[in-house]
């Protein structure tokens, strides 16, 4: 394990930025943390998490896929994929790191999505353990350890230092770059922090939330549950949950006519939107209840069925904080799965 004093962390950022683009949570003008490219003067935010999740780096909200030039009856296709450069995402929380695994299973399964794959290959993830979990956190429900996140490098931030441990080759290469700025140390401070935070995690209001009622093979059990009516009654169908969620992966492919060509791009879409399943012959999900149900069935039943029991939720709590009408996956799990949180 190596460490650097918290006062000198900007030197680390400076060193890394010499060779790679470095992104980390920085407080915006509205006080909300957002992943920003580091430059001299930018301060690493103390916020628990950002509103926009780091899935943006691998699965951006808008991504141009290819371009076309048409003339008369002819079409010319231009492959605009370029080689990405290595970049570092610093300060990723355990929940968001797990979300990358969930997205990998979709985008890196055959046929591999080359857009996602190339970004993922070049991304170096430095995760940081949580020191002040929020009441909206429930990563433990999905087996995630907030005190020991995965990633190429795991970091722990204490009152005076930042500790690092490399986990992969990419991580070791990262550590090599900042070798001169860091010093060897033992892991006593880290162990102490892990224990302290673990105790806090046990006291969180949602600590006892269990996902045991859900999983693959439960389509029949839950699809026709009468509770869906009540849960979806006041859902606005706005899609905020989908867009702040680190694991939501639905997208749309559209063409944009620039005036002298066509760009085919993909952009985030939401199964909550009324037009999502609309086709020439109608729409198989005509009311908000069906769309609401689809999103949660996908995360709690369909995704685990196709992915060895892994759930499509990481307990980051963003939907708890951001839904305009305070509906969220916790309320769904408790109502439909009959959970008690005592």
């Amino acid at each position, binding site marked *: 394990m190596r460490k650097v004093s918290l006062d000198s962390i900007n030197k680390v950022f400076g060193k890394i930025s010499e060779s790679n683009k470095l992104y980390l949570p920085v407080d915006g003008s509205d006080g909300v943390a957002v992943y920003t490219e580091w430059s001299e003067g930018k301060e690493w935010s103390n916020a628990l998490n950002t509103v926009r999740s780091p899935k943006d780096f691998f699965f951006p909200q808008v991504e141009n*896929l*290819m371009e*076309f030039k*048409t003339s008369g*009856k*002819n*079409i*010319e*296709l231009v*492959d605009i*994929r*370029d*080689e*990405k450069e290595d970049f570092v995402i610093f300060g990723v929380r355990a929940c968001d790191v797990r979300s990358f695994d969930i997205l990998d299973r*979709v*985008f890196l*399964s055959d*046929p*591999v*999505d*080359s*857009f996602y*794959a*190339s970004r993922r290959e070049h991304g170096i993830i430095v995760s940081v353990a949580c020191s002040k979990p929020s009441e909206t956190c429930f990563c433990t429900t999905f087996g995630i350890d907030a005190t020991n996140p995965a990633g190429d490098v795991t970091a722990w931030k204490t009152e005076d230092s930042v500790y690092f441990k490399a986990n992969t080759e990419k991580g070791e290469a990262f550590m090599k770059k900042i070798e001169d700025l860091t010093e060897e140390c033992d892991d006593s401070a880290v162990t102490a922090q892990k224990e302290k935070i673990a105790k806090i995690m046990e006291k969180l209001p949602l600590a006892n939330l269990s996902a045991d009622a859900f999983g*693959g093979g439960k*389509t*029949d059990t839950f*699809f026709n549950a009468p509770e869906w009516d009540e849960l979806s009654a006041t859902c606005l169908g706005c899609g905020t949950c989908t867009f702040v969620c680190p694991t939501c*992966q*639905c*997208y*749309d*492919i559209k*063409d944009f*006519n620039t005036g002298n060509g*066509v760009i*085919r791009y*993909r952009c985030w*879409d939401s*199964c909550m939107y009324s037009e*999502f*399943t*609309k*086709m*020439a*012959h109608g729409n*198989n*999900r005509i009311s908000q209840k*069906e769309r609401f149900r*689809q999103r949660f*069935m*996908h995360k709690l*039943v*369909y995704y685990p*069925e*196709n992915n060895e029991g892994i759930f499509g939720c990481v307990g980051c709590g963003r939907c708890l904080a951001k839904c305009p009408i305070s509906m969220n996956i916790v309320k769904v799990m408790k109502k439909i799965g009959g959970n008690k949180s005592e």
Partner: protein
Amino acid sequence: MNNMEETLIPKIGVITDVRIDTPDIKTFRVVTPDGKKAFDHRPGQCAMLSIPGVGEAMFSITSSPTNTEYMEFSIKKCGCVTEWLHQAEVGQQITIRGPYGNPFPVDDVFAGKNLLFIAGGVGLAPLRSVINYCRHYRDRYGDIDIVYGSRSKDDLLDYKEIIEEWSQDAGVNVHLTIDNPQEGWDGHVGFVPNFVKELGFDTNKTAVLCGPPIMIKFTLEGLISLGFDKTQVYTTLELRMKCGVGKCGRCNVGSKYVCKDGPVFRCDELEELPDEY
């Protein structure tokens, strides 16, 4: 340059023939600009066709894989992309990518069996690729019965081929019907589900169904009343699709992605899916 293979990036195709089949269905012949098939496929699979700036949509490949010269698509005019295609001329380039979807099990499950094809309207399009495959490898299959119905005789797709080729094959029985009586038609009149019951098929067959959802529902009921089991009946579904490879979520029903786990499903597999298709 990213040199990885990318299924979302299509090939360029060109329309070399446009045949008007019915008032709202045209059949398009597509090859690459140098005159070859864009790719090989298996019966029942589909391809994504697009016109840049208009849109992209999934269509079943109606020609059999045994046709080595070109691919055919029978397309009904009902939305943006199809409307645009319907006014396209020979020589128009389009983009094409595929093949997508799981095909009909023509080489394992169907081998050696008697086959009963039941189609309604444009639903004949995907089944035609299977029918012509089976006709090409005729001795691998038993009796072939084809029940096909449409609104009127002008709405019967592939009519010429049905009369001049399919009906003429040994061991192939064609049963046509139209919904309402029409002058110039002295064949059967009535809806496909009732026609199937009237014909009273023996259950020693494997059935393949395709057509409007309501036709599939009632025909399946009809087959069951004749003694068929759901495990003997196959169908192919249609949903809005965007990526075609089970990632974008649009065609996700239950734990299946219709573009990747389907569009061909056995009817007992459909039971396990929520009623959302």
